[in-house]
C-alpha cells in the first residue's frame, strides 16, 4: 500500500494533577471509594455554580508554553451539551471558540529524522464520572452504577495538526508529549488509570496528492502500542478500500484490542450536535503578561533542552541522550548516578541495558527500582577496581535488583570477588592446558580462535571469577 500516504491528527486528553477539581474544592485523588470526593457543585445539584480553579489555569499555561503556543489574552468557557449518566449536569464545561492557547508545535524524532508536529489548540475542560456496568448488557437484571469522583477533575485537551504520517510518528508524538507533561509535573499520564487518553483522526490519500481524503475518528485505544496498531490497521483498511475503487465512510470507529481490528461505532449522520454556547456562570478569563511571565519563569528544563545538555555536558552520543531524557525519572536517575560515579557513557550503557530490561520486566519506574543510584555507582566502582569482572557484575546487578542488597554484600555473600592473583590463575591455566592439548596445539598452529575456547575453560573452572585480562595474558605466555 506504499502508494497511499496517511494523514493523522491526534486529540489527547490529560488529567491535570491539581489537588482540587476544576470548578470546586473536591480532591482529585485517584482510587478513593466511589462517590466520596464529591460536593453539591461537582454533583451538579440544582442551584450550584462553578468557580475556576486558578491552579488548573497555571498548569494549562505551563503545557501551552512548553508546546510553544500562543496564549489567548482573553479566553472563555462554554457548555458542551449532551446527555450521559456520567455527566451530572448533562453538559460539560469546556472551551469552544476561544481556547486558552493555539498555534504551537512539538518536535519528534523518527528514524533519526527530527520533525515539528503542529499543535492546533490547547483547552481546559472538566472530566466526566465513571460508569460501572453490572450484569450482562441484555439481561433483565443488568444495571449500571455511577461513580462521580472523577467528575470535574480538570482535563487538558491537546489537538495536533494533521501533520502525522505514520503510526511510528504518532507513537513518537505521544512519547514526546508524555515526556513534556511529566517534566512539567502536571499529570500522571497513566493511560491505564485514564489520566491520559488519545483519539485519532485518520485519512489516507494517494502519495503526492494535496487533497485530504475522508477521515475516520478512532477511539478506545488503551495504550501507545494500541494506538500504533489501530492506526496501522486503519491505514491498511482505508488503502484497500481506495485501491478497490471504493469510498471511505466518514464515521467514528472503535479499536477492538482482542481482535486487532477497528469497528464502526457511529456514522456522521448520528454525530452529536453539542449546542455549544458561552458558560453564563463564569466570566471570561483574562490572562495578562504578568501571569504568563510568572508561569514562564516556573517552567523547568524540558526534554529537548535536557537532551542537548546531556550531549554537551556529559559527551553522550545523541541516541543515548534521547533515550535517557525521554523519561524524566530516567534522566533524573542518570544524573543521580553521576553524583557518585564519573563515567557517563558507562552509566548510560547500564541504564539503557540491564537496568531498563529489569524495570520493564517488573513494571517499575526508575525511582521505584530497588537499586538506588549510589548502589549502581558502587557496583561500577567495583568493576573499575578489578574486584569483579564486568561479566560477574551483570549477575551481581540482577541480584541487587531482586533483593535490594548492596553490590559489596552480594559479591561477598556469593564469593564473587575476582581472582587477580597471578599464581592462582596460573595454576588453573596449567590445568586447562593439560586437559585440552588439542586446542592448545591448534592455537600454536595459528588458529587464533582456539584461544577463546581455552579462556572459556579457565573462566568455567573459576566460576567466572578469574580476571579475564589476566587469563588472556597468562594463556598467551604459556602458549608462546
Amino acid at each position, binding site marked *: 500500500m506504499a502508494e497511499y500516504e496517511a494523514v493523522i491528527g491526534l486529540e489527547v486528553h490529560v488529567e491535570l494533577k491539581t489537588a482540587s477539581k476544576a470548578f470546586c474544592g473536591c480532591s482529585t485523588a485517584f482510587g478513593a471509594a466511589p462517590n466520596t470526593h464529591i460536593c453539591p457543585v461537582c454533583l451538579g445539584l440544582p*442551584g450550584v*455554580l*462553578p468557580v475556576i480553579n486558578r491552579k488548573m489555569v497555571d498548569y494549562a499555561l505551563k503545557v501551552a508554553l512548553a508546546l510553544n503556543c500562543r496564549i489567548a489574552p482573553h479566553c472563555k468557557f462554554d457548555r458542551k451539551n449532551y446527555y450521559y449518566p456520567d455527566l*451530572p449536569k448533562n453538559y460539560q464545561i469546556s472551551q469552544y471558540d476561544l481556547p486558552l492557547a493555539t498555534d504551537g508545535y512539538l518536535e519528534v524524532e523518527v528514524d533519526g529524522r527530527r520533525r515539528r508536529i503542529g499543535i492546533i489548540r490547547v483547552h481546559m475542560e472538566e472530566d466526566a464520572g465513571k460508569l460501572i456496568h453490572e450484569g450482562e448488557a441484555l439481561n433483565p437484571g443488568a444495571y449500571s452504577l455511577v461513580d462521580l469522583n472523577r467528575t470535574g477533575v480538570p482535563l487538558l485537551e491537546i489537538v495536533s495538526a494533521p501533520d502525522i504520517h505514520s503510526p511510528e510518528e504518532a507513537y513518537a508524538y505521544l512519547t514526546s508529549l508524555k515526556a513534556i507533561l511529566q517534566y512539567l509535573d502536571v499529570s500522571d499520564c497513566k493511560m491505564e488509570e485514564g489520566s491520559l487518553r488519545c483519539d485519532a483522526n485518520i485519512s489516507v490519500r494517494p502519495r503526492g496528492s494535496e487533497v485530504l481524503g475522508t477521515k475516520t475518528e478512532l477511539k478506545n485505544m488503551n495504550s501507545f502500542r494500541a494506538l500504533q496498531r489501530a492506526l496501522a490497521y486503519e491505514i491498511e483498511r482505508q488503502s484497500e478500500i481506495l485501491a478497490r475503487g471504493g469510498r471511505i465512510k466518514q464515521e467514528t470507529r472503535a479499536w477492538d484490542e482482542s481482535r486487532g481490528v477497528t469497528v464502526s461505532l457511529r456514522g456522521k449522520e448520528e454525530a452529536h450536535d453539542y449546542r455549544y454556547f458561552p458558560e*453564563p*456562570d463564569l466570566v471570561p478569563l483574562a490572562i495578562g503578561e504578568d501571569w504568563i511571565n510568572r508561569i514562564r519563569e516556573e517552567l523547568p528544563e524540558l526534554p529537548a533542552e535536557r537532551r542537548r545538555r546531556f550531549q554537551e555536558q556529559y559527551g553522550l552520543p545523541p541516541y543515548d541522550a534521547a533515550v535517557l531524557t525521554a523519561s524524566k525519572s530516567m534522566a533524573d536517575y542518570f544524573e543521580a548516578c553521576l553524583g557518585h560515579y564519573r563515567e557517563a557513557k558507562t552509566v548510560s550503557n547500564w541504564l539503557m541495558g540491564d537496568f531498563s530490561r529489569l524495570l520493564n520486566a517488573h513494571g517499575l519506574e526508575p525511582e521505584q527500582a530497588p537499586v538506588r543510584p549510589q548502589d549502581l555507582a558502587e557496583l561500577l566502582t567495583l568493576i573499575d577496581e578489578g574486584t569483579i569482572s564486568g561479566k560477574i557484575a551483570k549477575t551481581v546487578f540482577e541480584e541487587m535488583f531482586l533483593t535490594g542488597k548492596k553490590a559489596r554484600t552480594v559479591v561477598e555473600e556469593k564469593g564473587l570477588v575476582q581472582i587477580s592473583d597471578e599464581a592462582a590463575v596460573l595454576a588453573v591455566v596449567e590445568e586447562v592446558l593439560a586437559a585440552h592439548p588439542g586446542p592448545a596445539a591448534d592455537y600454536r598452529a595459528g588458529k587464533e580462535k582456539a584461544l577463546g575456547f581455552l579462556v572459556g575453560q579457565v573462566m568455567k573452572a573459576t566460576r567466572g571469577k578469574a580476571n579475564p585480562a589476566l587469563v588472556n595474558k597468562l594463556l598467551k605466555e604459556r602458549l608462546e
Partner: protein
Amino acid sequence: MDLLFRPAHELHRLLRRREVGARELAEAFLARLDAVEDKVKAFVTVTRKLALEQAAAIEVRLARGEELSPLAGLPLALKDNLCTRGLRTTCSSRMLAEWVPPYSATVVERLAEAGMVLVGKTNMDEFAMGSSTENSAFFPTRNPWDLERVPGGSSGGSAAAVAAGEVVYALGSDTGGSIRQPASFCGVVGLKPTYGLVSRYGLVAFASSLDQIGPLTRDVTDCALVLQAIAGHDPRDSTSAPVPVPDYVAALGDGRLAGLKIGVPKEYFPPGIEPGVRQAVERALGYLEEAGARCEETSLPHTPYALPAYYLVAPAEASSNLARYDGVQYGYRTEAEDLRQMYRRTRRLGFGAEVKRRIMLGTYALSAGYYDAYYLKALKVRRLIKEDFDRAFGRFAVLVTPTSPTVAFRLGEKIADPLAMYLSDLFTIPVNMAGLPGLSVPCGFSNGLPVGLQIIGPPFSEALLLRVGYAVEQAAGCAGRWPALEVGSDG
C-alpha cells in the same frame, strides 16, 4: 396589638423595646396564615415548627439583651427555588417535588445569620417560567386583592404572602420581571437588583445570565433593609460583583428629589396599555415633579426587540440548565426499559407544558445551523438594548415606567395564550437584558387593583432607586393600604 401589616422596621422597634416577643410575632403570623392560606394558596411548604424554634432562639437572644439585626425575628417566606438545607425545594415542579437540598443558598445563609424566622417556601411558576403562578405543578396562587385574579409571577407566592399579611417580607427571583410584576399586581414593593449584586449561589437556575434574587416587602424602607442583608460579593458565585455595599436605609432621604432628572421612555406607554395603569403612572410622575424632580420624555428605540430576544436567550440557557433533571441522580424518575426511554419519560412527565415549551425553544435556538440566526442575533440585540439604556443614563439619573401594562388579570385569562402571557413582562424584560436594577413601587389603583411604578437605574444605583421609590411612596399614600381578605366569609 395588630402586628400583621406593620413594616419590618416598625416590628423591629417593637421587638427591641420588648413590646412584643419573637414567639408572639411568629404565632401571630402563623395564625394569620392558618386563617387565609386556604384562599390565597401562597405556600408550597409551611415550616411552622422551624419558625417557632427560630423565634424561640431570638427570644433567648432578646432575654440576654443582645443587639438584634434589623431583620432578626421577623417572619419571612422564601420562593421555593432558593435552596434550603434539609428542607424540600421544589421549584413548584413535579421534577423536584421531593428533593431536599444538602446545602443552603448564600442568601439563605445570610438571612439565617441575621436571625431568620422562616414561615415557609412559596409557590411559583414551575422553574420560574411564567407570569401568573398558574404554571405551578401543584396549584395556582390567588391575588389577595381579588381571589379570582392571579398574583402575577413567577414569584406570585412570595408577593401574595406579603400582601395577605402571612409574612413580613419575602424573597423572590427575577429573570424577566418575576419579582417586579407580582409586586405590582399585589401592591407590594419589589426590587430586581443589578446583575451581580446578590449571589445566585443556591438559586435554582432558570437563565443564568438574567436571574437575580431580590426582596418583596411592605414598603421601600423594608426593601432597603432586606437588600442590605443579602447584597454583596460571594466567592461561590463568579458572576457576583466585588463592589462595596452602601447603607441603603441611610440613602432613602426625606422624600425630596430636588433637581433629579428623570427620563420617561415613550416606548413604555404603547396604545394597548390599560388606561387605569397609565393614569396611575402619570399621577406618580406628578408626585415626582412635586418632590422636585424634572420628568422628561425620552426614547429607548430598541425596546420592541427586547421581548423576542429574551425569548431566545432565556430559553437557550434554560434548555441547558434544566438538562440535569434526567432521573439519574435525584428528583422525579420514571422507570423504563432502557436509559433513553427513562430520560424521555422522566422529562415528559416531570416537566409541565410551559417548561417543555421553553426547553424546546432554547434547544432549537442553540442547534447547529440556527445558532447564528437566533442565539447570536439575540445577543447582539441584547447589546443594543444595553446601549439604549447607557445613552439614556447619560442624560437622566433614572427612568420611570409602568411595571406591567395591566393590573392583575383573571385566573385562566391568559394561560391558553402564551404570547399574551409573555406581554405581561414587556416592561420588565429589557431591564434584565441590560443587567440593570429595577424597583417596582405601588403608585395607585385601577378599579381597586394595585398599580406598580417601575424605576430603572444604571448598574449598582439601588440606593438612588430606593430614594426615588421612597419619595413616590410618601406622596402616593399607598403604603398602609392592604387587601381586606375577609376571613371567615366564603370569599
